[in-house]
């Protein structure tokens, strides 16, 4: 199995056991770099897919929580290279497959070929790059594909249907359905029409569709599960990690509606 297929398989496995996949997002090294691998182990033991955020100085698609997390991680010396080196020590056996979520510039600086090789080596199965639209994605996408690593495409409610179809076909791992026109971290609830939007996307996509942005509660995860293969929980989990009292595995079980 290629690394990107591990992501798809994990989502399908969750669906086969009658529940939506839970995709958990954390900013690497936040709130403290020393806690990164233990937190990752706890999250990857519970979630179906883990997105690890590479901090960037100018996170233009992110709200306050992830901006704060990125800034604090950078200030504590977290970089793409640091993350890849730590991941080499992560024991991924029997755990959720990993993706890196990064703005383009840190990847560009690392060099695409070296990045693809190193990512595959340390068990990274895919990338999500929020400022890399399909039109500009060939150089990175091809370098990753050569190592079997997937580039996940994002679709939004503003995307016209013909374009959405192209994005679904180009995506690897899963299709990331952004629930709203907006930035991450929103607490204003999901927009009206999100169910129809996800139904239409799930219909056209050969890959599982996971919805993210603004998903914070078990109720929302359940609702999303009726219309998509999985739900991405980001800012809410980052906030839970910031509150060091929180039992992270319990928090994720709670999002699934299981008893904590």
């Amino acid at each position, binding site marked *: 199995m290629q690394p990107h297929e591990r992501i798809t398989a994990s989502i399908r496995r969750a669906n086969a056991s009658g529940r939506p996949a839970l995709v958990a997002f954390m900013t690497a090294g936040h709130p403290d770099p020393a806690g990164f691998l233990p937190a990752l182990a706890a999250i990857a033991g519970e979630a179906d897919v883990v997105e690890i955020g590479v901090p960037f*100085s100018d996170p233009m*698609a992110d709200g306050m929580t992830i901006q704060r997390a990125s*800034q604090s991680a950078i200030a504590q010396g977290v970089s*793409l290279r640091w993350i890849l080196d730590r991941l080499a020590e992560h024991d991924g056996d029997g755990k959720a497959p990993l993706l890196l979520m990064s703005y383009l*510039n840190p990847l560009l600086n690392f060099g695409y070929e070296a990045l693809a090789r190193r990512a595959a080596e340390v068990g990274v199965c895919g990338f999500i790059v929020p400022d890399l639209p399909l039109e*500009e994605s060939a150089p990175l996408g091809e370098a990753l594909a050569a190592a079997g690593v997937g580039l996940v495409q994002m679709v939004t409610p503003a*995307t016209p249907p013909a*374009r959405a179809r192209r994005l679904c076909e180009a995506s690897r791992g899963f299709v990331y359905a*952004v629930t709203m026109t*907006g930035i991450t971290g929103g607490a204003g609830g999901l927009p009206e029409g999100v169910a129809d939007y996800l139904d239409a996307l799930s219909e056209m996509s050969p890959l599982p569709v996971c919805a993210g942005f603004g998903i914070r509660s078990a109720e929302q995860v359940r609702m999303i599960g009726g219309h998509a293969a999985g739900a991405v929980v980001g800012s809410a989990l980052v906030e839970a990690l910031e509150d060091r009292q929180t039992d992270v595995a319990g928090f994720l079980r709670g999002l699934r509606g299981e008893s904590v």
Partner: protein
Amino acid sequence: MTIEFSEAEKARLLAETIAGRLPDERGRFGPFGGRYVPETLMPALERLTEGMHRHLADPAFLERFRHELTTWVGRPTPLTEAPNLGRAWGAQVWLKREDLAHTGAHKINNAIGQALLAKLLGARRVIAETGAGQHGVASAAACARVGLPCTVYMGAVDVERQAPNVDRMRRLGAEVHAVQSGDRTLRSAIDEALRDWVSDPAGTYYLLGSAVGPHPYPYLVRELHCVIGRESREQMLAAAGALPDAVFACVGGGSNAIGLFHPMVRDSDVALIGVEAGGRGGGLGEHSATLSRGRPGVLQGCYTLLLQDDDGQVQGTHSISAGLDYPGVGPEHALLQSIGRVSYISASDEDALDALNECSALEGILPALETAHAFAGARVWARRHPGRRLLIGLSGRGDKDMPTLSRFPMEARHATA
């Protein structure tokens, strides 16, 4: 540390630039430019590109734009000879007076052009970022003129150092948001404006204020500012009987510079020189000299030169002038530098202050701190090339800088020069 081209490749890219074939379909100036934005903004940028091409090719739109430039902005702006500076520098010095354009800087050319476009494209509201506040004031005025509500994002550091402009924006009806995230200067203001736009890509028009950002902005902003270079060229021929030997403009994002330079790229005998902010030293974070010291990367929608560390984190910058305090630069400047058609130098905070005082005392014109960098660069060049004809883009006036200037007491020495 820009991209290296062979001589043949340089010649080809220069010819393409002169022929008006850049940016290409994908918004590329050679390798630079492009469109690196969240998917949410892609349809909005497609609509903007389509609408822009349609209206910029429409005589009715161009006539409306020309009419506003003439009757509201006050164009053409004069070309002023500066004989006292000329004597002091051993040169012939001419000034292109964008400080006399409505609202006091070149920014208004772009603001009114885009505001007209926003109205025609059916926008419900306009957002803008600003550094020095000049683009914010210009946007507020242009939006009042066309009848659209305007929200301006401005870094909290700049709100403080350009206070007079904040009050002007509010009086012109704009809502001003002091941005507290990031480095709280121009770059954070652009990040915040992009976040706003992502939240309402269909109803909101983003009136970007420099020749930066995703395609089509670098092209659109250049086209709206080229009036500066076209007028200058004609005025120089009429008043001096010849084109200048060298043309100077300050470079933040690069809008006044590209507007002045672009129409003269074809004039191979005219040296084009951009002046960046050298700040207070050469270390990362001490300056904003992107073209002199940057490496290629992607920031705020565009592949261009950036001030960044080895991990690709964009670095803090410093300049005494808010409008030059930016870690990126317009992609067309990155190209013009790499093919050797434009050279870029830098001037320190101190040199800019000194040049500002000199121009004020000798010619009775108080330039903006941004603009003063162009004077500082021109002065150095003039001393090395005696007896030449210089044209300086006087991009804006300095009234807005009084809070900063009052921290630096005048030296008497230029008063008697």
